[in-house]
Each structure stands twice: as structure tokens, then as C-alpha cells.
């Protein structure tokens, strides 16, 4: 049983909407089962879609992509597995055999899309610096529109051309390429953190990096515990700084007329 043109369009659209929601409104990105069921509904076999979605939902339990890390795309796997299973009539096993590899393919594409997003963000900032705010506002959502293609394109190819093409694409990509992208995906967040450090007063408080690092790497303290400790350190520093300021203010106030220090501060800022 083949797919009608309408069904191909609907399934591709479903993949697009799935990914769009997953990275913007974030309602049903984790409801893997829903995407299997909806694909089943489009193909006239809601129950099979539900069952395949449920299988993938159970497989995905406990696997999550935090902090922008990449993981197999179970929603895409659910859509393709259902589509393949009902078109070939070979059931769930045949569907999963293609669905999961394509889910992995989407994971690799994800790294590419995030790199493309860097370009958009940089263009947006260039526009902002040139005070071309209209252009800035227009280019940022381009990322939102392009992002879902990482799911829609592989799904389209898989449902139109089926297993041989998917396998050909997967075989065509050498191992150093897919593994390399994966490794890069793990390493690239360091760029953002390095960038962030440029704006922090490291010469003054840089040693707190060691505290955060050691607590996480060696002691596996959850981030909340580390943040609480950071708050305690910040409170201590805040008190030390305000006490010092108060004593300066007091000494000034004793020699000058009241409020003099406050006024001079403001005057200096105006100039």
C-alpha cells in the first residue's frame, strides 16, 4: 500500500509542526506517543500509530536533552515508524527499523542547524548595532522557521523513497562525520561559556570557578546546591562591600555637609 500525495504532505507537515512546537511553544515535544497516533490517524490506522508511539515513548523514558545537548529524536522516529509500518504492512518492527536510524539522523542535523543559528544571531546583532531594528526583528524568527526542516526533510525523504534511500544516506555518511558531529555537539557549548566568562570580573572573583567546578565534577552536587552556595558567597561579599561604603560615607558625612556625597555622585554621572 503506497501513500497518496495528500498523505505525504500531511505527514511532512506533521513532522514540521512537531519540531516547531518542540523548539518554540514546547507543548507536545515530549508526548512522543501523540505524534505516532496523529500519523496513524492521517493514514487511517490510529491504533497502530498509538501503539508504535507508545513503544517509542517507553524507549525514551529517562532520556532527555538538557542544556541544548543532542539526543535521538523520538518524535520523528514515531512519525516515520508509523508511516513505514502501515505502508509496508510489515508491522511495528519494520517501522522501528527505519524510524530509529532517521531519528539519529535528525540528531546529527541538529548540530548543523544550531551552527546555522549562530550566523542568524550574529547578523541580528550586526543589524542592532547599525540601529536597523526592523531588519533585526525580521531575521531572528528565520531561525524558528528553518529549524523544523531538520525533521520535515528527513521524514519527507523517508516516506517518499523508503528504506533503500534512508539506508543509502546513512551509509553515505562516513563514521568520522557522524561521530565527529556528535563529539562537536558535546564540545561546542564550551564556546558559549568561554564567551560568557569574557564579561565576568575574573581577575577579582575568578577563583569561584574552581568552587563551582569541583562541586560538580568531583562531588556531583546538583546545580541548585551550587547556586545556593554562590548566593551565600554573594551575600557575604555584598555585606562586606556595603559596610565599607557606609563607613566611607560616614567619614565623608562627618567632614562635609549632609548629602554631599550623594549629590556629587549624581553630578559625576551626568557629565
Amino acid at each position, binding site marked *: 500500500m503506497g501513500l497518496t500525495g495528500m498523505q505525504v504532505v500531511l505527514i511532512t507537515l506533521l513532522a514540521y509542526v512537531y519540531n516547531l512546537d518542540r523548539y518554540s511553544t514546547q507543548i507536545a515535544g515530549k508526548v512522543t506517543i501523540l505524534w505516532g497516533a496523529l500519523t496513524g490517524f492521517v493514514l487511517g490506522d*490510529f491504533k497502530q500509530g498509538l*501503539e508504535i508511539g507508545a513503544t517509542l515513548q517507553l524507549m525514551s523514558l529517562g532520556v532527555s536533552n538538557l542544556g541544548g545537548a543532542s539526543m535521538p529524536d523520538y518524535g520523528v522516529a514515531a512519525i516515520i515508524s508509523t508511516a513505514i509500518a502501515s505502508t509496508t504492512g510489515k508491522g511495528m518492527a519494520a517501522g522501528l527499523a527505519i524510524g530509529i536510524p532517521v531519528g539519529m539522523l535528525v540528531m546529527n542535523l541538529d548540530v548543523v542547524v544550531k551552527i546555522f543559528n549562530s550566523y*542568524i544571531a550574529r547578523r541580528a546583532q550586526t543589524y542592532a548595532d547599525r*540601529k536597523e531594528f526592523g531588519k533585526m526583528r525580521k531575521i531572528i524568527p528565520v531561525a524558528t522557521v528553518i529549524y523544523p526542516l531538520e525533521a520535515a526533510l528527513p521524514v519527507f525523504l523517508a516516506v517518499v523513497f523508503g528504506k533503500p534511500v534512508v539506508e543509502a544516506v546513512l551509509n553515505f555518511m562516513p563514521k568520522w562525520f557522524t561521530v565527529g558531529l556528535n*563529539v*562537536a555537539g558535546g564540545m561546542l557549548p564550551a564556546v*558559549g561559556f568561554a564567551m560568557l566568562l569574557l564579561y565576568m570580573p575574573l581577575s577579582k572573583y575568578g577563583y569561584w570557578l574552581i568552587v563551582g567546578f569541583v562541586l560538580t565534577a568531583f562531588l556531583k552536587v546538583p*546545580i541548585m546546591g*551550587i547556586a545556593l552556595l554562590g548566593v551565600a558567597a554573594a551575600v557575604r561579599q555584598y555585606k562586606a562591600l556595603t559596610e565599607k561604603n557606609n563607613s566611607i560615607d560616614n567619614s565623608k558625612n562627618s567632614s562635609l555637609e549632609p548629602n554631599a556625597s550623594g549629590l556629587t555622585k549624581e553630578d559625576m554621572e551626568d557629565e
Partner: protein
Amino acid sequence: MSDTKNIITKHDLLRASLRHYLGVSTFNYDTGIASAIVWELYPALRKIYKNDDELVASLDNHFKYYNCNPWLSPIITGATLAMEEKSGNKVLNAVQNIKTGLMGPLSGIGDSIIWVMMPTILGAIAGSMGKVGNPIGMWIFLGIYVLCFLLRPYMYLLGYRSGTALVSSLGSKLNAFTDAVSILGITVIGAIVASTVTIKVGWKFANSGVTISAQNILDQICPAVLPAIVTYVLYKLLKKKVKMSWLIVGIIIFSMLGAAIGLFKA
């Protein structure tokens, strides 16, 4: 600047919270979701800053790396919006430090509840019911997330109110506050470098029948030592004005070469 008149209305906050849905789709490795934050705050910031130069300074500040669980991020940006409304460009450093210091902990709470705990419990129910052809678990799963979705704009209001309260209580002590809160930010960065950056060495040494993996040796000396080194090297290169795009290209090439010779594994 410290007049009591409010520039930002509830309508502006609702607008920002709706624009916030762009969220993760703008994620990239060098600035995180910063451009989404710029996009969501732009109309409100435009109202705050009549002067173009001041607006650009504020936008540039928001273009710096920021990544937070999108469900809880509005608490932070709501608060910093209130700060910018009250004090303008003077608070940009405080804004940056608050964003950096809170994004990790709030992501920690948000990610573990919204992306791990809830999907695991609801997914287990929906999955086991769905396997026998019963969609009720699936509808419950979806329904709860729709409900949470509808509550999200409230986060902005919450953040905005706490930001307003913070600014009015700080007053002239803002500089001390900015300075102190950077400690929180730095500590959190130290932690997320160790937890988020992952580099696994694939090499193994065979020695008289016993194979030892290089990764194990590294972990015994210092866990997450490679992420720390890579971040340090990148920081030094950025300080030397090496362009960000070259660093990204360099990492990809380095990763692929490493994967080809088996130095790194996925």
C-alpha cells in the same frame, strides 16, 4: 530615572511572554537563546529607551550568551526588565550578572521537573496504556502540558514584580549588589562547564591482557578535566580577539579529526 511612573504595562509583559515562545528555536553554540531574548524584549525595551544609543547598549547586553529553561526564563527576564525600566543603562552589568547567575539554577529546576520528572511519570502511564491501544494516558499527558503552557505568561508577571521589588530595595547599593552577584554567576559557570560540556576519549591501552581506557584514567585524575581545558583555551583565544566563527569551525574540524583517529567517541 527613579520616577514612580510605570513605563511597562501588563499588556507589554503579556506581549513579551508571547514573544518568548520563539525560545529554543534560536539556540546556537555561541550565544545560546540570546537572540530570542532580544526578540521578546525588543518592544518593551524600545518603550524604555527613547534614545537609540541606549537601546543598542541594552540590546548588545542581551545578545551575550544566555540559555535557560524556557518555562522559567521569564522569571529572570521579567525581573531584569523591571530593573531596566527603573534604572536604565546604569543596571546593565547587574542585569547580565543576574541572568548568568540564575539561568543555571532555574534551568536545573525547570529541566528536572518539566523535561525529566513529568515526561517520565506521564510517559510511563501513556506508554503502557497506549501499548494496549488505550489513548487516555496520552490525552492526560497532553492535557497537563497544555495547562502548563497556558500558565506560562504568569511567570513574566512574577519575575517583573520581584525585579521591581529588588530595585526599590537596593537603591544606592546597586553597585555592591552587581559586584557581589557576579560571584554567583562565576560559580555557576564553573559548575555548568563541568556538567554540560562533554568530551569522551575513546583510546584504550592494552597492557598484558588488561585494557585500560584513557577516559577512566582522566576521570581518576580529575573528572571533566577536558571540558575545563577546552573552555580555558577558548577563553584565551577569545581574549586574543580570535573570531567566534573560526572557533566553531575549528572545533568541528578538531572533533572530526579526533573521531577519525579514534581519539574521541560519541
